[in-house]
């Protein structure tokens, strides 16, 4: 019996396997940020132990940072304190920090890949559920809690039970105006926000193979939104071409050796998955969510489910969700007024996302009553956008290009959507209050968000493509 890609990577990282115990899994790369790490460093201090392998942890500040005037001190005292604690902790324990002001600073799941820190075959963890993003490179990457951050700092290992394996295949040709964000929103809408809980997902099929690395990252990023422990895609020529020459990627003979290993990283033809799902790319239209979990999504031309389409015992939660959103069952979303547009987050803030949006909005103007925030994922993305003149296109359209950070994805920093406002967002979560107390979120692709920015309403991007 062959092995799955996930099994190959996981099994080769098990340091100790003991009956009745979770596996002690060695971690190649550990990313940390300011929110979920301070208590872990405190734990080390209480135990009087150092970081075991400080070179294998990389830090950045992203959740709490403002996305305007980053050259000035953070205004909000608690946010400032948390970011300062990260500086203090990384300095004291000898961990590299790409903090505010550093040319590599950015969202942790954007900078790891773009710097070539994230590589195929690695085990990668971070105190952040969207660590699954790094799986796009054929790495086993997953989010962890702060106690687990402390485990990794202390021992470079983590105790985990091995998840089950799921394969999700998407074959066929994507329709025009359909992006990888639509693929993953579609999958989650089909299998629900808990449909992959307990599983590690491998995405496969020609529709996945044809995607760029940026697009693959968007898919793997949202694996957690269907409950999966993580998601990964076998590395291929697209992966290797993306990595070659990146700052921390192997060079020379190291590259050749690494490449030889990476080329063994695929699921064997006779590998056994615990669950296999298949979808046809041609069935996917641009997607949008209407509710308060990422599984509550529909095709852009669809309608919100009518009450009778929802199982009776799920109706109270469904009603609660629509009450929060101020939306009616059975109604379409096309034409729904939008107040804010947020293009950013670890899901969709890479240069390719910004290029797509810029290509579409060039020569167009945003609707007068819509606020549009474009938040690049990193200083490098920001610099690249400026080098390509994308910043001018946004400025001409009335879009605001801000500085890198998690921004309005999670309402932890200054960027919050006001109460009762509708925001179409390229981020990953539409939970109640996620973008600000009583803010209402529609998740969508960068193109669908950009279309809404121009019209001020939920719009089918394909109507611009006749």
């Amino acid at each position, binding site marked *: 019996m062959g092995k799955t890609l996930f099994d190959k990577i996981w099994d080769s990282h098990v340091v100790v396997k003991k009956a*009745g*115990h979770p596996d002690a899994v060695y971690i190649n790369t550990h990313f940390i940020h300011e929110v979920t790490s301070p208590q872990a460093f405190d734990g080390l201090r209480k135990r009087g132990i150092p970081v075991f392998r400080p070179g*294998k942890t990389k830090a950045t500040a992203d959740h709490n940072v403002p996305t305007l005037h980053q050259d000035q001190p953070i205004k909000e005292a608690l946010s400032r304190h948390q970011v300062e604690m990260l500086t203090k902790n990384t300095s004291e324990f000898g961990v590299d920090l790409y903090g505010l002001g550093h040319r590599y600073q950015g969202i942790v799941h954007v900078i790891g890949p773009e710097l070539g820190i994230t*590589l195929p075959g690695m085990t990668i963890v971070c105190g952040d559920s969207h660590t699954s993003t790094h799986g796009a490179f054929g790495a086993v990457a997953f989010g962890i*809690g702060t106690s687990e951050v402390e485990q990794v700092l202390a021992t470079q290992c983590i105790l985990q039970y091995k998840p089950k394996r799921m394969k999700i295949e998407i074959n066929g040709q994507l329709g025009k105006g359909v992006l990888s964000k639509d693929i993953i929103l579609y999958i989650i809408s089909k299998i629900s926000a808990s449909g992959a809980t307990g599983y590690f997902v491998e995405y496969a099929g020609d529709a996945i193979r044809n995607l760029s690395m940026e697009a693959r990252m968007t898919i793997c990023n949202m694996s957690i939104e269907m*409950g999966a422990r993580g998601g990964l895609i076998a590395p291929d020529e697209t992966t290797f071409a993306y990595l070659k020459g990146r700052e921390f990627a192997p060079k020379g003979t190291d590259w050749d*050796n690494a490449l030889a290993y990476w080329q063994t990283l695929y699921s064997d033809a006779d590998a056994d998955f615990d669950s296999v799902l298949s979808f046809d790319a041609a069935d996917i239209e641009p997607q949008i969510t209407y509710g308060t979990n990422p*599984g509550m999504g529909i095709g852009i031309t669809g309608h919100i489910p009518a009450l009778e389409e929802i199982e009776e015992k*799920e109706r109270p939660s469904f009603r609660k969700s629509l009450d929060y959103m101020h939306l009616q069952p059975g109604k379409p979303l096309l034409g729904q007024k939008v107040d804010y547009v947020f293009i950013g987050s670890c899901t969709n803030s890479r240069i390719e996302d910004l290029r797509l949006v810029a290509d579409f909005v060039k020569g167009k103007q945003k609707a007068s009553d819509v606020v549009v925030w474009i938040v690049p994922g990193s200083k490098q993305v920001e610099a690249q956008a400026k080098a390509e003149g994308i910043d001018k296109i946004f400025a001409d359209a009335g879009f605001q290009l801000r500085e890198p950070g998690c921004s309005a994805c999670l309402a932890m920093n200054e960027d919050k959507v006001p*109460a009762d406002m509708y925001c179409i967002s390229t981020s990953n979560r539409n939970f109640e209050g996620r973008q600000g107390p009583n803010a209402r979120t529609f998740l969508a692709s960068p193109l669908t968000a950009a279309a809404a920015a121009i019209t001020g309403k939920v719009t089918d991007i394909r109507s611009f493509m006749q």
Partner: protein
Amino acid sequence: MSKIFKHLVSSAVPVPIENIDTDQIIPARFLKATTREGFGQNLFRDWRYEADNTPKSDFVMNNPLYKGRILVAGKNFGCGSSREHAAWAIADAGFKVVVSSFFADIFRNNALNNFILPIQVTDEFLDKIFKAIEANPAATFEVDLEDQFIHIIGTGLKANFDINQYKKTCLLNGYDDIDYLLSLRTNIEQYETTRPYNF
């Protein structure tokens, strides 16, 4: 935080909502502390308080009839963000047990790492718990970790639950994962010598 869990008899606080995500348990704007304490006051913050901090009378934690050390919630509890602050908030608010018919993976780990016992029961048994509390808000429940059961005392109904043996031992004895991992140091160093590259 008590590091040992063996047995508990308590009434329960019901939150019969499905897919309760960790942003509801503790919104991101309250994650700025650098210690593990004090999160309990913001547990379910936006369901519990108006924007001006007045308690919302229709939320169960603001109803004096409902109290206890067991939180009972709808299926897929703890989905979303990996923030351990969710587990800290639940512990800080005095809960030792969370009962649901389904838990998100990361939350389950975070709960166990904070000596909170997540008990997964069937949808039917969860419904019976909610009904027992509906009939009598002071209904009491017995939870026993050694024998792995939860008992609705008033009705005599009992359900067994699963927990992995390692975590059970940790909870019964107050051991944590880092103690165990630190004991593997020689194995870890040995493992490192077997890996040719940084993968």
